[in-house]
């Protein structure tokens, strides 16, 4: 889309965008992440969506210079993300980056992630651990369970016409077209995952992947706990089935929807 590109050139382009971070009990890590973003994208506004934390996440984030959207009730990851999208739409942002507040995503990757969106090459850029890159960064290590989960989701995506290598990546950049879609009632608030990417594809948004490096998550994956994988798979399949009720919209530039990074 051209909204993002046309806004360039006036003053600091970073000021027209927003970096959002959903956070729940991340007081020990979020300060460094906000600092890192301010260094990587000088002048960019940072919004921390506090998902009803019990620790000092709000205070730490404010002290680091971020604006804080404190949710009065615990909404979960998707509900927190959508709060950020609503804020971006309300404050007329030209672009938005979402990243995790636990330090898994590196602020240094943000400019490269944002570039294809600002240049109008895609509407939604996904930071991927699995796109090969030129420099010598070490590959991301995944254990068998996570790897199986990633492969199944990637396969689901391919069945729906989306080619992504890292379907669970929470590191994404987007323009106003994606924001408009994600603030609609179609956004799968419960477990935003491959179904978000399929929704975006179905509504004619152009996706691309950008190689990034991620640190191992400090928290255990929920795919490791008991019956959660079964429940997760069930929710995902239900969500995908619900997706088929949403009318299709063709991409303005067909055939340009993969491997833009």
């Amino acid at each position, binding site marked *: 889309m051209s909204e993002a590109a046309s806004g360039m050139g006036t003053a600091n382009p970073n000021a027209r965008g927003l970096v959002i971070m959903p956070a729940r009990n991340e007081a020990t890590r979020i300060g460094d992440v906000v600092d890192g973003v301010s260094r990587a994208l000088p002048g960019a*506004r940072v*919004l921390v*969506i*506090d998902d009803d934390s019990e620790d000092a996440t709000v205070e730490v984030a*404010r002290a680091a*210079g971020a*604006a*804080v*959207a*404190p*949710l*009065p*009730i615990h*909404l979960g990851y998707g*509900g927190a993300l*959508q*709060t950020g999208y*609503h*804020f971006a739409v*309300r*404050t007329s942002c030209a672009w938005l980056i979402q990243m995790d507040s636990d330090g898994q995503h590196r602020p240094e990757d943000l400019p490269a992630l944002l570039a294809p969106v600002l240049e109008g090459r895609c509407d939604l850029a996904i930071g991927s651990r699995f796109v090969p890159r030129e420099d010598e960064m070490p590959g991301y290590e995944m254990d068998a369970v996570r790897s199986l989960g990633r492969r199944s989701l990637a396969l689901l995506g391919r069945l729906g016409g989306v080619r992504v290598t890292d379907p669970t990546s929470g590191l994404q950049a987007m323009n106003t077209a994606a924001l408009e879609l994600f603030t609609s*009632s179609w956004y799968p*608030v419960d477990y935003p995952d491959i179904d978000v990417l399929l929704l975006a594809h179905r509504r004619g948004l152009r996706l691309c992947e950008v190689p990034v490096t991620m640190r191992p998550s400090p928290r255990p994956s929920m795919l490791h706990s008991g019956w959660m994988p079964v429940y997760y798979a069930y929710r995902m399949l239900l969500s995908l089935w619900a997706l088929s009720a949403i009318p299709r919209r063709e991409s303005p530039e067909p055939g340009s929807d993969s491997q833009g990074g």
Partner: protein
Amino acid sequence: MDRSAELERLRSLFLSAPESDATRTLMVIGSLVLIAIVLWLVRRRALREEHTPIWIAISVGLAIVSLVPGMLGTITRWIGAWTPASTLFFLGEVCLVALCLSFAIRHSRTSVEIRQLGQEVAVLRATLDELDLDRAD
């Protein structure tokens, strides 16, 4: 010995039994009491009007079934049950499932509305936050 013919004979015997006046009276009283309670709750503002149609429909349905002679027997023959009592239980269960489903739908709608309110509150407070940040600059 043809067992199915014997069963069929037994079933028609069950169905031809005269309707119990006691059951009928209880059903009429029950449905009238239900209608009265629903109306009273609406009057007390304890039950909002929009929630009442399904309750009124159930109690009026019960009243009709109990007041029209032979209706319960006819329904019993239709659905293949043996006794009017089973028919009553079956209809009651259908009503309960319908009520539960309507509650689940209302509950889903309410949780969406609560989520939207929560997001709205957070967005407004973030807007205030940004105003503060701007003033500090």
